[in-house]
């Protein structure tokens, strides 16, 4: 098999909030087309790690690369990392789509307007082209029949599918999912996971913070178990979920499975 350069590289990423250290030196590679599931108890740092990848959180130390870009910083002649301007960070973010636990759709815009907003305002795509692309994406997540509805008129599962289409509208190389099904009623989880499974099969590189062990087992290429700001165990789903080596992983899995 050909040697693949990782799309995402994290090198010794650290992050503290006040006196609490949330990430204690994370190293991680994600290959193109891989689906990485981040699992672990709440407070273990999974979401913070995910949010460092598109600079929604500013790491205190370490480097995050997506493709060739050092996210959020540039190394200057003085050998230090200087934070980039908001404009440059936004250029980097166009390659990274994100889906939130609480959807965060724009409530005053229709489904279609939600999806075309960023392509039109950021990429300066014409309304016609953006709309055509949006209809394609909405069909892909099974929501095109609701293009003119407002988010409040949709179920949670439908809103999250629209949020996925919105994240895809910028044609990202990487999709981040922050507990995408945690805010959903149990009967609505399946439809969102189905869309994500389809996306994974189409070859999208995905990092998914999740509590859905079934999804991790079936869809993930790699699973990372986090505890106390560290990656405690990392491997294929069969390794991490099927035959965990660490006590902490075993104890966590015995509670959630």
């Amino acid at each position, binding site marked *: 098999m050909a040697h693949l350069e990782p799309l995402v590289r994290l090198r010794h990423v650290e992050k503290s909030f006040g006196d609490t250290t949330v990430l204690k030196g994370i190293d991680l590679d994600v290959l193109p087309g891989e689906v990485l599931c981040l699992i672990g108890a709440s407070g273990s740092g999974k979401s913070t790690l995910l949010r460092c990848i598109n600079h929604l959180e500013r790491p205190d130390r370490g480097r995050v690369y997506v493709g060739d870009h050092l996210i959020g910083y540039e190394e200057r002649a003085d050998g230090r990392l200087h934070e980039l301007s908001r404009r440059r960070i936004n250029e980097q973010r166009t390659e990274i789509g994100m889906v939130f636990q609480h959807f965060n759709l724009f409530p005053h815009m229709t489904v279609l307007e939600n999806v075309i907003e960023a392509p039109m*305002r950021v990429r300066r795509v014409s309304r016609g082209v953006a709309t055509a692309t949006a209809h394609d994406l909405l069909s892909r997540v099974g929501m095109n029949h609701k293009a003119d509805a407002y988010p409040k008129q949709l179920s949670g599962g439908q809103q999250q599918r629209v949020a996925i289409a919105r994240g895809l509208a910028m044609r990202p190389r990487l999709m981040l999912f922050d507990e995408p099904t945690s805010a959903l009623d149990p009967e609505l989880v399946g439809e969102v996971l189905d869309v994500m499974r389809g996306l994974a099969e189409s070859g999208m590189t995905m990092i998914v913070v999740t509590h859905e062990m079934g999804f991790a087992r079936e869809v993930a290429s790699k699973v990372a178990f986090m505890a106390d700001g560290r990656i405690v165990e990392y491997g294929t789903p069969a390794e991490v979920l099927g035959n965990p080596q660490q006590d902490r992983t075993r104890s966590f899995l015995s509670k959630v499975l």
Partner: protein
Amino acid sequence: MTAVTSRPAEADIIVPRPRRGRWVGIAVVILIAAGVVSSFVTNPNYQWGVVGEYLFDPRILSGLGNTLLLTAIGMVLALVLGLVLAVMRLSASGLLSGAAGFYVWFFRGTPVLVQLILWYNLAILIPEFSIGIPFGPTLWSVDTNAVITPWTAAILGLSLNEAAYLAEIIRSGITSVDRGQSEAADALAISRGTAFRRIILPQALRVIVPPTANETIGLLKYSSVVSVIALPELLYSGQLIYARTYETIPVLIVVCIWYLVVVTILTVLEHALERRLGVGFQASASATRPRRWSRWLISNR
């Protein structure tokens, strides 16, 4: 104990409890309303004929025009300044947020009437108004008395005072928008300015508009305090008339009629604006059914 009947449950007839208290209330209100109407019609001191004479008097209409102009300019300036103050108040910098806080504290904490008189007499405090480097050279200066007319004093007083109130209203509107909204905009690479204009502000306006409409109505009415610095707005124009003719009550009725007309128009505009901004915020469009007046009388829900 429940009584056992042979009648099947689907044949039951349900009688709601009579609302006796509500009928008493209705009777009292009708009585008072009848009393007020009868006074309007039978008491000659209202001098309705005089009211009719002055309703479209050019002096009254010019006063009305001044009131509208004062309210409009005052409100626009106050909105701009209020927005700046609200953004300052939300700034991470202690100095910026503290300065805005001080402004609000001062202008909200002193009566607008006092502020107006102070502005009008600014020349006593600062005889010459100049622009330059503090403690350094002066670049430009002007005699304060030439700048402060009743109009500039009125506009300064009303808008600076109103800005303090609007700053708080705008700030609470902006903070009412969920943080997830600006995070989503960030993740979509939307710039801060665009996100504020397209995503945060339209949602904040839902919270900002109703109290701001209230403030506009308030400003319209308390702009009448500028009569103390002899600016002929609606009330002062009326006062100038009845000071000569002693037709105090009918002229004041004319003034009230015009205030009510403008406030009614503003209220209609406000409702239209609220409906527009409410788009997307209700799960389903609830159609309001037309009601028979007999139903409205006792149950308007």
